[in-house]
Structure formats: structure tokens, C-alpha cells
């Protein structure tokens, strides 16, 4: 399964896109109506930053510990039940 595609890259991709969009909205497009809704807390900006940090976390994790194709089928590995 993991040999074919790595879920960590998919999470990084999704949150990367979301993070950039929110960051741009937070920096450049905060309206007065938004401030009324949020009570002045720029949630798009902060969530954008958090999501980009998460993207970096999953990207680094996937890059440092890539999925190694398994040589033996899982049943012959550990924890075999006799």
C-alpha cells in the first residue's frame, strides 16, 4: 500500500494549498464584515500560518522517513501467531 503513494505527501499537498489561500485572504482581504464576525481576530491569517507549519511538518517527516518497500510479506514479519 505505502509503496504506491504516501499519505503524508497528500496531507501536505492539501494543507499547503489551504494554507496559502488562507494566508493571502488574511493578509490582503480582511473585510469589516469579517472583523464583526470574528470579533477582530484574524482567523484566516493565523490558520494559514498553522496549516503551512503542518505542511512543513508532514513534508519533512515524509522526506526524512520515506516508505521503504517491504521485502517480506507482513505475516512473516513480527508478531506472528502460532
Amino acid at each position, binding site marked *: 500500500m505505502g509503496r504506491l503513494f504516501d499519505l503524508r505527501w497528500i496531507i501536505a*499537498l492539501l494543507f499547503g494549498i489551504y494554507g496559502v489561500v488562507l494566508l493571502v485572504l488574511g493578509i490582503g*482581504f480582511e473585510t469589516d464584515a*469579517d472583523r464583526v464576525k470574528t470579533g477582530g481576530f484574524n*482567523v484566516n491569517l*493565523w*490558520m494559514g500560518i498553522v496549516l503551512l507549519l503542518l505542511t512543513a511538518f508532514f513534508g519533512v517527516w515524509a522526506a526524512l522517513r520515506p516508505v521503504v518497500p517491504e521485502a517480506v510479506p507482513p505475516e512473516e514479519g513480527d508478531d506472528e*501467531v502460532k
Partner: protein
Amino acid sequence: MLLADANLRLDAQAVDYVLLGVYFVIVLGIGFMARRSVSSSLDFFLSGRSLPAWVTGLAFVSANLGAVEVFGMTANGAQFGIPTVHYYWIGAIPAMVFLGLVMMPFYYGSKVRSVPEFLRRRFGAASHLVNGISFATAQVLISGINLFALGSVVNVLLGWPLWVSIVVSAAIVLAYTTLGGLSAAIYNEVLQFFVIVAMLVPLTIVGLHRVGGWEGLTAKIADKANELSSWPGTNLTGIGNATLSVLGIVFGLGFVLSFGYWTTNFAEVQRALSARNMSAARRTPLIGAYPKLLLPLVIVIPGMLAAVLSPELMQAKQALAANPDATTDVQFNDAIKLLIRDVLPNGMLGIAITGLAASFMAGMAANVSAFNTVFTYDIWQTYIRKDKPDGYYLRFGRLITVIGVVAAIGTAFIAAGYENIMTYLQTLFSFFNAPLFATFILGLFWKRMTAAAGWSGLVAGTVSALMVFILANSGAVSWFGDPKSQGPSFVGAGVAFVVDIVVSVLVSLATRPKPDEELKGLVWSLTPRNTWRERGEGWYRRPGVLAGGALVLTVALNIIFW
């Protein structure tokens, strides 16, 4: 709870639709990529037993994080306040720990492919058939609830008629579950978990910011005595007597309903069975316990926030407090949608809508992937078409997935009729899960328990839970609690458990037990403990350490919110 009302319409703009669209593209992409890894029925139904523990652990939480939890628990938060945390800290966590420590070795170790299959090995065909059919039926009913919720979000967002929204939503879930099987469902569940958290955390933070923090929230709550302390939770149970209410929560909700749900529900256990080895399987519910014990902070609190921030919900709550039968414009189930509408700006709004869609898809996909496995392996392969080549069952699995989704479209319209989804579901669970848990516990620890006891206990338990439901709803017996609250399902679960145990013991004493050789690996006293041992893994991966940490945190949270 029709959502066509204009006041519930979320003010989504182009950017919000783009964020939702990106998500759907990735979800379907996962389905197509996972398809390449499906070459046998075991790949399709159990991901080839190859997944790492962090993936199965998060999928374990996500499978349960459907409409019931997101709508139901925010609704409970808005209606009852803090006592809702019992679903997590009395209910879910101890049961998840028990599953990982005690039950998983039997499930994973015996190499069964489903929970009903374990029953067949332990008790034979009759209890297997009872459970297989009741489980498959329950999954179709529950996936209808998730589908209805998903359709209602699309309905509110795009303004399509409800039935079109439901059919289109069903088609998307169907696409990725038939293509990629359980792997696609699980991979999407992990993704969904993160998206749901990315919705709930900012919702809680902005909401708290609006009301002036925790003090601001508590100052605005009218019924401080009931809603701000978790015990005795009489408003949650609807049982007036404080002692009985605590008993109902601890025994009915905590011990029977939650243990029944988390330890025998195949939609959950299936996630652990897809893990790559025994250690990863045992760690699946234990890793899941950590996010699960933090979730009420971002689910129950937003519910409470909605009840003080949304003018409509505040009015509805006051009207209901004055007259429990009052008709209101909005329902408690609308709590999270009202809060999203009122506090999130465009951008975050798109992510929140995506989070709602993700949640309902996760819930439905979990039901569908558990349903197709049980129907194919436990009903079709066991009783109807035996000994066909594996490719036949893979094709049949895909076909039955389509049929299951079509049936869920039908049940989606049944779910539409209930005011509080949670009450409806707890009732269902008390019919199926509580007796099942009793049978499992007795069967695991008492090797004398016989095959006849297995099925007769299950039937007697389910029938007694039905009786409680009928008595409470007809108004014949009132001390079970108000039929509109969750008390009757707690009582029903407790009664079903006791009846199941009594009937099982009596029947066992009158019938002949299976010989010991046939029960190896299926009963505690006949299973050698060395098959459970972990080899060469770090201390932090030991199930005992993970379980201890989760329990300590849960006790701490219980005390903080006492």
C-alpha cells in the same frame, strides 16, 4: 430538521467553493490511486493487513467522527452543556483502552476477517447469522444518517433540492469506496480527521474570543447548576433522581453502551484489523484515544458557544425551557452550522464546509466499508456461495457496495424524521451492541459458555432493549427517563446487558460446551500469552504505556471539568 430555511444558508463565496473543490479532487484521487493496490479480496476488505498504526489509529477516530458526533455532540453541548463530556471520558476512552489491551489480541490473533466471524468461531452459525444480519442492517441505517447530513450540507450550500444533494453525495462516497476499497476509505479518513480538526479548532478559538473567553461563556449560561458541572448530569439523562442518573451514566453509558460500541462494532474494529501486525493492531485504538480525549474541548464547547452566540438558538432554548413541546425555528442539531455562519469569515468558512462534508463522508464510508465486508464474507461467502475463487468475492464486494449505498439513500429519508439524531442512534446501538458486548465478555472469559447460549443471549438481550424502548416511548414507564433525552437508551443498554448475561449463563448450564481444542485463541484461559509479546520495539510503543497515558489524561480532564 429540513435545512432549506434561508436563515441557515452559509454565505459561501467563490474562494470557499474552490477550497471544497480541491478537497473533492484529492478524495477521488485517493480512490483512483488506491485502486492500483487492490488485487485480492483481502486487499479490498482489509487493506491487505498492511497499514501503519498512526494511520489506522487516526482512521479509528475518524470512522466515528461522522454526523452523529459532529451534529449530535455539538447539539448535546448546546442543549445540556458540560455533562456531554461523559460520552468521551466515561464512555469512549476506557472502552478504547479495553479494546486495545484485552480484546484486540483475540481479534487480530485469531486471524478473523470480521467481528461476526469471531462469533462464528466461538459460538457457531446461529449467533453468527443473528449478528451478521443485525450488523449489516444497522450499518445501512446509520450510513443513511451520515448521508442525510452530507446531503443537507450540499443542499444548504448549493441550494440543490435535498434529494439531488443526497444522491450526488452518495455517488462520491460510492466512487472512492468501490474503487479503492478499505484503503481508500482509511486514507480518506485520516485526511478527513485533519480537515475536521482544522474546522473545529478555529471555530472554538474564534467563538471563545467573541464571548470573552471561558469566563464570558460561563457568565452567559442560564442554567449554571446543570450545564456547568458534569455530575450528576440529570439534564443529559432525563432521570430526575441524581443517584439513578449517575448510575445510568456510569453503567448504562459508560460500561454497557460505550464498551459495546467500541469493542464489538466492526466499523471500528475493522480499522485495527487492517494494521500491519499485532502490535500495530493493539496500538490502533490506543493511539486513537489521545485525539479522542481532546475532541470534546472542540466539539462540546462550540455547542455551548452556539447556544449563547446565536440569537435563533438562544431563543429556541428559552422557548424549550419554558415549554418542552414548543416548536422552534432552529434545532439543537443546527448548532454547529449556526456557529460557523456567525463567526467564520470567507476562507475559513470554506474549510469549515469542507470539514462538515469530510466528516459525513468519513462516517458514511466507514459504515459502507464495514457493511460490504460483513455481507460478503459473513453472509454471502459463508451461507450462500461458498468456495468460489477469490476474484469472485472481490467483484461481489464491489457490487454489494453499490447496493449498500443505494439502500442508504432510502434510510437517509428515515433519518430526516428525527429531531435529535443522537437519541435515534443510541436507541439503535442499545438494541445491537449492548447484548453483543455481554456475549463477548462472557464468551471470552468463561470457556463453559455454549453455542446455544451465544445466540439465545443475543436474541433475549436485543428483545429486552426493544421492550425498554417501547415502554419508555409509549409513556407506560417514566423512571427510565424522558423519551426525548438519552436516559431510556442508557437504561435499555443496561437491561439488555443483564438479560443477555442471565440467559447465557442459564442456557450454558443446560447445554454442552465446545471441547477445549476448538476454543484455542478464542478464550482467555486457553490462549497462550506469548503470542501477544512485542519484539524489539521502543518503550513508547508498548500498549500498556500508551493505555496508561491515555487513562491518566482522562482522569485529569474528568477532575478539571467535574
